[in-house]
């Protein structure tokens, strides 16, 4: 896959998303915005699961920390530049995850790690639920959207679709940065740790330090996603930290394909579609999502992206002289998914 083609697909995808307010209703734009944030959140979790080999069940805790920190700052009308605030939130997430990771990663692995992170998330959930300053079970509402001082002009994110476009840009930048990281040197070390920690250690890599690094980056990005979420929905509740929220990125990543970088994005888009089309009946969306996930794990553990990769491989192998056979995007109803599906570097046979 050539670099220019990848860039082309990214440009097309961003254009389709950025133009959403012109061709669809306000409610759908709102859902697309939520999906964008969820996609970044899922990408951050998949850095741990798909590329480092750490299964955590409490990732929502970092998201919630970011969301609540932003809410507090915006509520108090703190005189901070919004970009600085977002950076601060990410830093807060990073510091927290370093602290948590130093203790947790040293002592636990496998199932113990999963349960430990789940318990930590649940502790945060309960603490938020009892904290008066954070609005207890009712959460915080009426959070204002900030103004963005761009030196040349003052952009009011509260008016019109400004915040949506801001969201598009930031999410794209974060995803791009994560992509760069994953395919760069650090990402390669992480993947080798995922495949065989012992051998990687033998090659002179400090496995514990790289795991902690991965944990920190994932925590920081999850907190950043939380920070983006708050001004978008303007109402937050302690549910943000609960276990179902932690499960969301897992479901997204697995459906899309945890072995592929863009898999979680595809999965998030598909889940958003399922949720949207089953929104009327309580329990139905859970049932459908659960069944879909089971089928994915049983039939195609590499997710949608893995399936696409297999299809593409078959196609390119049959007419050997045709190297640029395009893989048909299965999910053309999700603009983001179809744009990204083609540029995904799919790794085969990961289980």
């Amino acid at each position, binding site marked *: 896959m050539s670099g220019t083609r990848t860039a082309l697909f990214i440009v097309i995808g961003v254009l389709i998303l950025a133009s959403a307010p012109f061709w669809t209703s306000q409610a759908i734009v709102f859902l697309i915005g939520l999906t964008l944030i969820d996609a970044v959140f899922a990408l951050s979790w998949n850095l741990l699961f798909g590329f480092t080999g750490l*299964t955590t069940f409490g990732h929502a805790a970092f998201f919630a920390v970011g969301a609540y920190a932003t809410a507090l700052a915006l509520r108090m009308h703190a005189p901070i530049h919004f970009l600085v605030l977002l950076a601060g939130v990410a830093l807060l997430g990073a510091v927290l995850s370093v602290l948590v990771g130093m203790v947790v990663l040293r002592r636990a692995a496998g199932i113990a790690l999963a349960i430990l992170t789940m318990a930590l998330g649940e502790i945060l959930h309960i603490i938020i639920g009892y904290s008066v300053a954070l609005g207890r079970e009712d959460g915080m509402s009426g959070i204002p959207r900030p103004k963005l001082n761009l030196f040349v002009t003052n952009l009011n994110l509260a008016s019109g679709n400004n915040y949506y476009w801001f969201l598009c840009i930031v999410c794209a930048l974060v995803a791009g940065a994560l992509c760069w990281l994953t395919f760069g040197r650090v990402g390669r070390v992480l993947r080798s740790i995922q495949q065989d920690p012992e051998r990687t250690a033998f090659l002179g890599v400090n496995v514990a330090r790289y795991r902690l690094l991965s944990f920190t980056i994932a925590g920081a990005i999850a907190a950043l996603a939380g920070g983006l979420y708050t001004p978008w929905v303007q109402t937050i509740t302690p549910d943000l930290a609960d276990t179902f929220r932690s499960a969301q990125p897992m479901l997204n990543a697995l459906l899309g394909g945890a072995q592929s970088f863009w898999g979680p994005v595809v999965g998030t888009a598909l889940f958003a579609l399922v949720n949207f089309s089953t929104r009327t009946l309580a329990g139905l969306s*859970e049932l459908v999502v659960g069944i879909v*996930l*089971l089928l994915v*794990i*049983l039939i195609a*553990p590499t997710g949608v992206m893995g399936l696409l990769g297999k299809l593409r491989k078959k196609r390119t192998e049959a007419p050997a002289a045709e190297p640029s056979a395009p893989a048909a995007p299965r999910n053309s109803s999700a603009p983001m998914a179809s744009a990204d599906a083609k540029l995904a570097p799919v790794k085969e046979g990961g289980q």
Partner: protein
Amino acid sequence: MLFAILNGLSTGAAVFLVAAGLTFVFGILRVMNFAHGHFFMIGAYVAFSIIGQHTDSTLNYVLVSLLAGAVVAVLGVITDFTVLRRLRNVDHAYMMIATFALLMVASGASKLIWGLDSYSISPPPAFEGGFSLSDTIFIPAFSAFVFGIGVVVFLVLDVVIHRSWVGKIMQSVAHDSWMAGQLGINVPVLYTGAVVLAFFLAGLAGGLLLPNQGLSPGLAFSYLLHAFVAVIIGGLGNIRGAFVASMLMGLIESISLVLLPNVPGLTIYVVMVGFLLWRPQGLFGQGGAH
């Protein structure tokens, strides 16, 4: 304080009923079944659909609970054949997430079938009263009954696993399934048996504990988390450990409710996190069905 301790023992026994199946399946199959709490809840709903809100006689109540156990056991067979069996040789993480998917299926299905309302169910007439130890301490008969069930189930399981022929075979499979297979033991059948037993326990517990805490869609999750804590603290796959840990947990929970009434539910997680960091292998070590 004494009341808190007695109450805690009853809570602990209730948690153990759920934790037993969870730890049993882990001991043999090495699967952490996230859906266990929801199958427990389905057992409760099945029992509720049959007897309604008023349990008329103790015998019916026990029979219905057994029936609920049987229904859930059938679900266990289906689950084993459709899901668990296929994922036996796949990475642990996928199995974990598959059971999480099962959790969602079970949760969604029970919401569709039984709705979102919560119900409270009265215990059978024989357990309606209680007895008082002194002027201030009153023990509801039903709490004593729950504690009794917990102890009985524990003793039965313990004897089966440690003293019986089947239990010995199960231990050998848990210890080294390949070798057990070489020696002519039908490992897949045994695995299915273990799953069915665990699911039966979940359904039975659902029916028996029905009057204990009522019925709502949130029921599964609260029990699941508590059972997880008990299983982890007791050592994964360790029935004795799970029993001791469940009792400890019930005690911690109800004592902390007296000492720290402002933050119910928090202490248990703090204890678990501290414990996991101190002894990740659990109180009695990890093992195949001990």
